[in-house]
């Protein structure tokens, strides 16, 4: 299904946070959304699943710092390329962003970990407004 970059960016940020990545790492992934396509997303989803994978994603964001300081990190693959493209502000791909439903569900599953289950109290007080407004 076609997704917009803004949708992918928002979902990546929430999914990263929901899966327990450091906020700054989740931001780096989200801001690279312009350059992220199916294969890079697969790498992210694989990474978010395990503690080891999350460490690798975190290390990848740190490797961007090393690269900014002139090092040449021994990293490759679609996700690294996307992060580097963001860092270098290379023109993003123009083709429509197609993401499979399975990938989107996986991403949304992690994002849902940032949502707080509804209670009567939160429904009534949390937003500060009643349910009906007919005036």
């Amino acid at each position, binding site marked *: 299904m*076609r*997704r*917009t*970059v*803004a*949708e992918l960016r928002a979902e990546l940020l929430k999914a990263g*946070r929901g899966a327990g990545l*450091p*906020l*700054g*790492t989740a*931001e*780096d992934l989200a*801001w690279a959304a312009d350059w992220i396509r199916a294969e890079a997303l697969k790498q992210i989803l694989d990474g978010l699943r395990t503690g080891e994978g999350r460490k690798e994603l*975190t*290390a990848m*964001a*740190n490797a*961007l*710092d*090393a690269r*900014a*300081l002139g090092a040449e990190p021994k990293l490759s693959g679609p996700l690294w390329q996307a992060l580097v493209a963001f860092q270098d502000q290379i023109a993003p791909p123009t083709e429509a962003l197609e993401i499979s439903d399975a990938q989107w569900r996986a991403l949304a599953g992690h994002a*849902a*970990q*940032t*949502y*707080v*289950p*509804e*209670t009567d*109290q*939160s*429904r009534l007080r*949390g*937003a*500060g*407004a*009643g*349910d*009906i*407004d*007919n*005036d």
Partner: protein
Amino acid sequence: MDEMAPIASPQAPLRSPDTVMRLARMGASFPTRLSFLPTLLRQLRDEGAEVTRPVWEIGPEGYGHAVYSVLLGGHVYSLVAISSPLEADQRTDRVIATAWDTAYVLYDGVPDASEIARLCDAAPLQEAGRFTERDLVLSRANRSVRLFDHVVEALRKGNQPDADRICNTGYLMRTTAVYGNGKFGIADRTHIAQRPGLSGPFMAEMLTVWLIRGFTHDLVEHLGGRPLDRRLKRHLGIGNATGLGMAPFLVSHPLLLDAWMQVRETALARVRAAGALSAARRARYQELAQRVVRHLAQWSVPDAQAQANIETLQDEWQAFSTALPGLLDGETPTEQMYHASLTGSLELQELTVAFLLEPFGELVDGLTCCMATPAEPRLKPGMSITDLKSALQSDWSWALDLDFADPTATHQFWYVSESKAEPRLGLRHEEPGAERESPLDIARQVQDLAGDLPRSGSLAEFLMAHPHHRAAVRRVQSLMRHPYAEIRDNLIDADCRPIDMLRCKLAFFGAARFDPKSDRWTRITLAQGAPLADELDRADDWWLPAFGDE
């Protein structure tokens, strides 16, 4: 500041971010001529834009659809408006609603019959629908039932509606969300960000809202069977109900917040340095001051605290305008007016800022092109820890001095509810869910960072060992170049009032007549007094309008 274009105009010093970026002051904001809606309307006027209504398929009960088109910056945009029956027990301003009186899409181009049919199916679903890159903005609005029905009944009887009731409510419908930038499949902002007329922040959203306002006028005239008096119509803007969902935007877009503030503060600094005034400008200030008196007299709200603030402001403004003739003489009248306001309330001070800018369009309007910023904050791993610490000391004392061991300092937490992703605020020490809080606790994050920083060394190495400080480091670094990027208050404190953030953002949109319903949501009016589609020549003179003025 080193990223800003060189400024040729003389200017006074900018107000300090420590003054400007406090919640209480942000919560006293007023719209200015630099706000987004007036900026858009000036653009439409400059282009001689004409609004057409190629489709009007609205039945005798007021249900159906209509299309409005307008040419802006070489592109045609169309508002597709859909009106449907709605049960009274379905009518809520909250995000958790699932049905509305009316639904809207701003469409890129002129929709053909199949596109109109697609939008008539999808737009009433709002968040549950799916949209395309041709769809630029998605919105919905509910009737202000009492006023809407009154206006239709009056027209049907051959009368004009009651002027006081028009003045008191100020709109026929309230939008309860205006979605842009890629949500639910609509076009990403990058798709239109370079287009003349839509390149500024929220321009497509403002165009949508202004066209919706015209539709609400047409709808009551259709149902009432005769035209509404032009003066009444002009004073029917479009309402809006805004809740917590708008507040995190200011925190998640720090560079944009800085750009908006830089523009407003730079405009103020230029006007303060304007020197002696021409007779025409002195007269203009006098005339505007009297209009503000009338505007404030017509602004009354049910909330007791908000009403008390308005009444204080009414008194203060009366005194200010009485003193005005004396302030307007001399070599530095704008500076004198600015200083005279400083003895009053925050509302008086911020109102005066907006007032000062109003007659100086040619000096300040050009600054609005600096209000959009494409960049995301960048981390600078080469910075020394010593430099980072010195930035913390100079810019963040408001955060570092807080005592987070005190439970009141962490009393609230921001979160997103599972129910339709509605943003909410909870009480940390009483309610579950704080472990999933949204990261709006900027002051606490930065204080944690300061506590873990070593004496010296490499920032890149520090971040490898402490990756959870990455976001805070980026914010500290951003604030060094973008001094208005942070709200300098603790957003999880017991005293934090989200309504202050909402008012600041809404004032930048151009909203007035703030009508807070609690500390976390507000109604406002947009486009009240604004030109109708066939009178854009009035686009330069509707700041804080008063009902009854021509």
